[in-house]
C-alpha cells in the first residue's frame, strides 16, 4: 500500500500574464511503505519545490499530495525533514536543537524520558562529545548529523531529505551516506531522497526517478536499482547491475541536458552600442 501519493501535481508561483512561473506539471508519484526512493535532477529543476509540497511547507496549485491516504494540509511530525543547509538554530546547543523537536513531538513524555531520547539520538549520530556545542563550533558534516538526529528524534514514519549532503566534501559525504543507510536499515522507515548525484542515488535508493528540468518539470521514467543490501561502496564500481543502471540514468539525463541546450539556442539580435565612460560626467 502506498504511504505517499502525488496526484497530478501542478505548481506555479506568482502567476501573471507575462510570467507564468510554472515550476512543476503533471507530477505523479507513489511511494510504498519502507521504500527508499531517490529523485535526481539538475539544479533549478524544481526539486526543492517538490519536496516542500511533500513535507507540507508548500501547497500544490493543482493536484493532491496524499500521505497515508489523507491529503497533506501542513507539516507533520510523521514526516521528518532534513534540509540541505542543515537549518539548525545557531543560538541553541546540539542538545537543545534536538530537544526542541522532542518537546514538540512528545509533549506528554516525562522530563527524564525526553532527556533519554535526546541523548539516545545524539549518540546515534556519534556526537556525544559535542552535546553542548553550538552549531558554529561544528563542521559541516557534524551539523548535518545533528540535523539527521533532529529529524529522526520525532520518530517520523517517513524521512524526507532535500539534498542533505550537497554541501559536504566527498569523504564526509560517503561517511554520512553510510550512516543514513545504517539508520534507515535498522528502523526501516520510508525515505525520500532528493539529490543531484546519480552515484549517491544508486548507492542509497531502491528506485530512482529523474526530474525533467523545468519550467513545467515532470517526472521521468523510473529506474529500479536491483542491487542487494547492504551495498558495499568499494565493490559497487565493478557490479554489472550498477554499471547498467548508472549508464541508463546518465544517458537519460544527458539527453535531457542536450534537449534543453538545443531549446535555448535562440539567437537574439543585440543593438550595437559603444560603451561610454560616464565617470567624469556624473555632475
Amino acid at each position, binding site marked *: 500500500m502506498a504511504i505517499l501519493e502525488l496526484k497530478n501535481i501542478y505548481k506555479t508561483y506568482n502567476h501573471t500574464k507575462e510570467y507564468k512561473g510554472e515550476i512543476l506539471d503533471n507530477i505523479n508519484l507513489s511511494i510504498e511503505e519502507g521504500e527508499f526512493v531517490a529523485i535526481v535532477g539538475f539544479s533549478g529543476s524544481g526539486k526543492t519545490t517538490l519536496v516542500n509540497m511533500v513535507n507540507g511547507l508548500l501547497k500544490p496549485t493543482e493536484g493532491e499530495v496524499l500521505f497515508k491516504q489523507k491529503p497533506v494540509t*501542513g507539516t507533520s511530525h510523521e514526516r*521528518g525533514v532534513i*534540509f540541505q543547509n542543515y537549518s539548525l*538554530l545557531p543560538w541553541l546547543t546540539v542538545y537543545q536543537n534536538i530537544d526542541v523537536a522532542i518537546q*514538540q513531538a512528545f509533549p506528554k513524555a516525562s522530563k527524564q524520558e525526553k532527556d533519554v531520547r535526546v541523548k539516545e539520538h545524539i549518540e546515534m549520530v556519534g556526537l556525544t562529545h559535542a552535546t553542548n556545542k553550538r552549531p558554529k563550533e561544528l563542521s559541516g558534516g557534524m551539523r548535518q548529523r545533528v540535523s539527521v538526529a533532529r529529524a529522526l528524534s520525532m520518530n517520523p514514519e517517513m524521512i524526507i531529505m532535500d539534498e542533505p549532503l550537497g554541501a559536504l566534501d566527498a569523504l564526509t559525504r560517503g561517511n554520512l551516506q553510510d550512516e543514513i543507510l545504517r539508520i534507515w536499515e535498522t528502523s526501516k522507515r520510508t525515505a525520500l531522497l532528493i539529490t543531484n548525484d546519480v552515484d549517491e542515488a544508486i548507492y542509497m535508493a531502491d528506485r530512482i526517478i529523474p526530474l525533467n528540468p523545468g519550467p513545467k518539470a515532470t517526472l521521468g521514467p523510473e529506474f529500479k536499482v536491483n542491487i542487494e543490501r547492504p551495498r558495499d561502496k568499494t565493490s559497487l564500481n565493478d557490479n554489472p547491475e550498477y554499471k547498467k543502471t548508472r549508464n541508463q540514468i546518465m544517458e537519460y539525463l544527458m539527453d535531457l541536458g542536450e534537449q534543453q541546450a538545443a531549446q535555448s539556442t535562440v539567437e537574439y539580435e543585440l543593438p550595437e552600442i559603444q560603451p561610454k565612460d560616464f565617470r567624469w560626467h556624473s555632475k
Partner: protein
Amino acid sequence: MKDSIIRITKMIGLGFLEPVIRLIHKEDPQKNIREIFRKIIAPIASIIIFVFLWNSGANALFNSLSTSKIEKARDVGGDKEAERVAKLIQSAKEKLNGEFIISEDPADLKALENNNVYAVAIAKEDGSYDIKSGLTPAEKKEVPVTLPSPFQTKNAFYTLLIDYKVVRANKASFKEKTFEMNKKRVANGKKAITYTGRPSFVDQIKTSLKTVFAGFLLALFIAVPIGIIVGLSKTLRGSISWIIQIFKPVSPVVWLLLVTMIVTTLLRNSDSDSSFIISFISVGLCSMWATLVNTAMGVASVNTDYINVAEVLKLKPLQKITKVVLPASLPLIFTGLRITLSVAWMVLIAIELLAQSPGLGSFVWEEFQNGANDSNSKIIVAMFVIGLIGFALDRIMLFIQGLISFEKETI
C-alpha cells in the same frame, strides 16, 4: 594564560593593551612594537596635541579679552588704572592655572601666598573641607571669563570633587542629627525629614543616570513588543509605518512639551516628582524609535530556514516567537537598543536643561547662568563627564550584546 589575559582585557575594553602583553611574553617583538606605537603611543600623542591646541586657543581668547578689558580701564581711569588691571589679570591668570592643594595640615594654607596656587582645601575631622581660594576679591572682579584652559578645567574638577565630599559630610551629619527625630515622626505616622540641601555634582550624575535608565527601560518595554508585533504582520507594518516616519524626526523639545501637557494634567492633584516623570518619559519617547525600527526589521527578516524549521517542528505561534523569531532577531534588537541608549543619554541633557529636573543638564545650565569665575570650567568638566559616561554606557551595551548574541561577528 597569556591568551586568557588578552581575552579578559579585550572583554573589559582594554584591548589596546594586547601588544604590551604579547611583548612581555616575548612574542614577535617587531610586530608588537609597531602595534604598541599604533594603539598606545599614537593615541597618547593625539591627546597631547589636543590639550596643547585647547590650551593655546584658550590662552588666545583670554589674552584678547584681557587686552580689551585693559583698554576699557584706560578709557575710564587712565594709564594708572590700566596698569592696575593688567597686573591683577596677570596674577589672576597665574593662579587660575596653578595648583589645587588638598591637605590635612592647616599649615599648608600658607601656600596661598604663592602666586601659583589656585586654592587650598584643608580636610576637617567630619570629612568636610575648608576651601580657601587663592584669588583675591579684586582679582576675581577683573579676571576675564572665557573658554577655560585645561589647567582651569583640572582645578574645576578638584573643586567639584571637594564639593562632593563637603556635601557628603553635610548629609551624614544631617542624618545623624535627625535620626532620633525621624524615628519618632515615622512612629507617629508622619513623613521622615529628608535632606533638601544642595546636591553635589555626583548626586547630579546619579540623578541623570537614574533618569536615563528609567527612560531606556520605558523605551525597551514599549519599542520591543510593538516592534515584534509590527515585524510579524505585514498589514500592521503598512498601517503603522506613517507613525514611525512622522514621529521619529520630532525634536526632543517637542516631545518634552507634549509629555508635560499630559503629565501635568494627569498629576495635577498628586505631590509626586513630576519633573522626573516628565523627563524620563520624554527621554524614552525620543529614544525608542531606533529600537522599534530595528526590532521590526529584525523580526521581519528572520532567515526563512529558521521559519521552515519552526514549521516542520510544528511550533505553536507563541513558541515560534520565543524560540525562533526572537533569538534570531536578537542581534538587530540589541543594535537598536544600543542606539537607543546613546540617543537617550544625548537627549537627556537637553531635556533636563529645559524641564528644570535635577541632573547634569540642569547642572550645566545653572553653571552657565551663574557666571562665576569657575563656572565655565565646571561646564567643561561636565562635558567630559557626559562624554565619558556615554562612552561607558555604549561599552556596557556592547559587552551585554556580546554575551547574548550568537553571532560573534557582530561585535
